[in-house]
């Protein structure tokens, strides 16, 4: 369990101080994949770097299994850090060492015997599918392979927590998927707690169970991924979940006009003729004001905004009808989505 209490981090710059994190409270249960998402500058990297004290909090606490990391001596902190591994956007492999020797690195730090360390490193390389690359140098590997090496290295000391700081942001979509799958399968195999920092919704959708949305250094919204993504409440969350709606200047609700947001959350229903059925069953005519759906892993995701001209009752009736359709979520938009 990682508990973050009232975490504040202020950086001193030439033009005064910048508050990167403003009183964050979070608790990350053991054995889950926890996502942290936000725009650039939202403070997500600072937050994850506070979790292993690469950044020292200005105020507040980071408790790992009940221990306040900031209270540890330098030596105790170094020992704790072996339980909280980290992988990075830039992989950060030692370029003058072979792949095998890179994976041995954290074991060398704790004084593991060389042959023992190499045996363990080979096992890890097998787990990430790179046992045939043991004796090559990182410069000879692709980005995805380098990140696999970094993952193997991060797991060498059998950590309980894996922090992923934009670990897939430098990779192409296909490689991103394979790395995410690897992280998820290792997480299940080793019962790890994984904290994923990303600016990509798709990453959260793919592997996270919980998500926290950061905006300007504060928690905008937090909860199980399904819940947050299907019914985003905060402005920041809506901006992430419906990026195009706000980009288009938002929906302005006029008099006698009602807007319904239909959310496809990975169901089969996206293939059904929803609007035609609505008209046939209820006689209510809906117009598509906005739509953006996509297929991820053969499941439909996205939103559609329907405009209905008529009374509130008509809108309610349409809502009622759509609630009976399986696999979609519907809600009335009565505010500016911006």
């Amino acid at each position: 369990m990682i508990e973050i209490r009232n975490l504040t981090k202020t950086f001193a710059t030439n033009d005064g101080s910048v508050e990167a994190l403003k009183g964050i409270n979070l608790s990350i249960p053991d054995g889950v994949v926890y996502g942290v998402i936000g725009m650039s500058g939202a403070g997500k990297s600072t937050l994850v770097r506070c979790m292993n004290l690469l950044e020292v909090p200005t105020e507040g606490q980071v408790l790992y299994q009940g221990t306040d990391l900031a209270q540890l001596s330098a030596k105790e902190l170094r020992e704790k850090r072996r339980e909280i591994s980290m992988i990075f956007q830039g992989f950060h492999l030692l370029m003058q060492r072979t792949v095998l020797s890179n994976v041995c690195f954290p074991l060398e730090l704790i004084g593991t015997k060389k042959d023992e360390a190499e045996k363990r490193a080979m096992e890890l390389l097998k787990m990430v599918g790179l046992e045939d690359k043991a004796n090559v140098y990182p410069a000879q590997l692709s980005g995805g392979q380098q990140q696999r090496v970094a993952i193997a290295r991060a797991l060498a000391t059998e950590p309980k927590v894996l922090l992923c700081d934009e670990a897939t942001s430098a990779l192409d979509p296909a490689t991103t998927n394979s790395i995410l799958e690897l992280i998820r399968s290792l997480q299940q195999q080793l019962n790890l707690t994984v904290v994923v920092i990303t600016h990509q919704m798709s990453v959260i959708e793919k592997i996270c169970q919980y998500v926290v949305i950061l905006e300007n250094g504060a928690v905008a919204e937090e909860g199980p991924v399904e819940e947050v993504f299907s019914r985003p409440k905060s402005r920041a969350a809506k901006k992430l979940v419906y990026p195009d709606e706000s980009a288009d200047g938002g929906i302005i609700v006029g008099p006698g006009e009602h807007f319904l947001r239909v959310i496809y959350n990975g169901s089969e229903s996206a293939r059904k003729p929803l609007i035609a059925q609505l008209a046939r069953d209820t006689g209510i005519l809906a117009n598509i004001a906005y739509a953006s759906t996509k297929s991820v892993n053969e499941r439909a995701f996205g939103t559609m905004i329907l405009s209905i001209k008529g009374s509130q009752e008509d809108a309610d009736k349409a809502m009622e009808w759509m609630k009976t359709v399986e696999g979609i979520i519907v809600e009335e938009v009565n505010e500016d989505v911006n």
Partner: protein
Amino acid sequence: MLINPGFAANIRFEEWSEAMKVFRTEFPTAIGQTIYVTVLATVLAFAIGLPLGILLVIGEEDGIRPLPKWFMHLLNIVINLLRSLPFLILMILVFPITRAIVGTIVGTTASIVPLVIAAFPFVARLAESSLREINPNLIEMAQSMGASPWQIVTKVMIPESIPSLISNATIAITTILGYQAMSGILGGGGLGKIAINYGYYRYRTIVMILAVILLIILVQIFQTIGTKLAVKSDKRLRK
């Protein structure tokens, strides 16, 4: 104007044969002395300069092992001071130290002391610049894995900057070779001494030119070996 061609040829011939004699009798020893002093002085300069270079990097305020500010100031001042002294002046200034260590201030071995004292601050700066080239993210990675400052120095900073350190060692050894030649004027041995004794004091231009040519060849050899080693050691260049 009348010039006796035979006479001119005679002089040139005598000068040549004398130069050849010097070349055969004195040059082998001189080359040996030059290499011996240069290499030994470089090794010793690194033995002192490399640790200081490391301190310059890790001891900074935001380094991995911050050291007291007064210490860092003192270190910088001493290095800059030694770096700004002209080599021949420094050689004279350290005569007492040389005498204390070697027992004499003249001779090949004695010249090693001022050479090391002149070169180690230079080497410290070279090592500092090599170590600063390291991607700071690598250091952060090591910290995130619980590496101690000592482990970061020995397992990350030095191994990762080996190619750059070799390049800079090549610069150091060629510079020290130049100082070594200069030391010939104040009792140092080697090719520099021959060039000065024969060429400057006795107007034996040919001998001087030969000595200079040999110095050029030595620099070329050191530089070529250094560059090759640096490239060969760099695993980033392997494809």
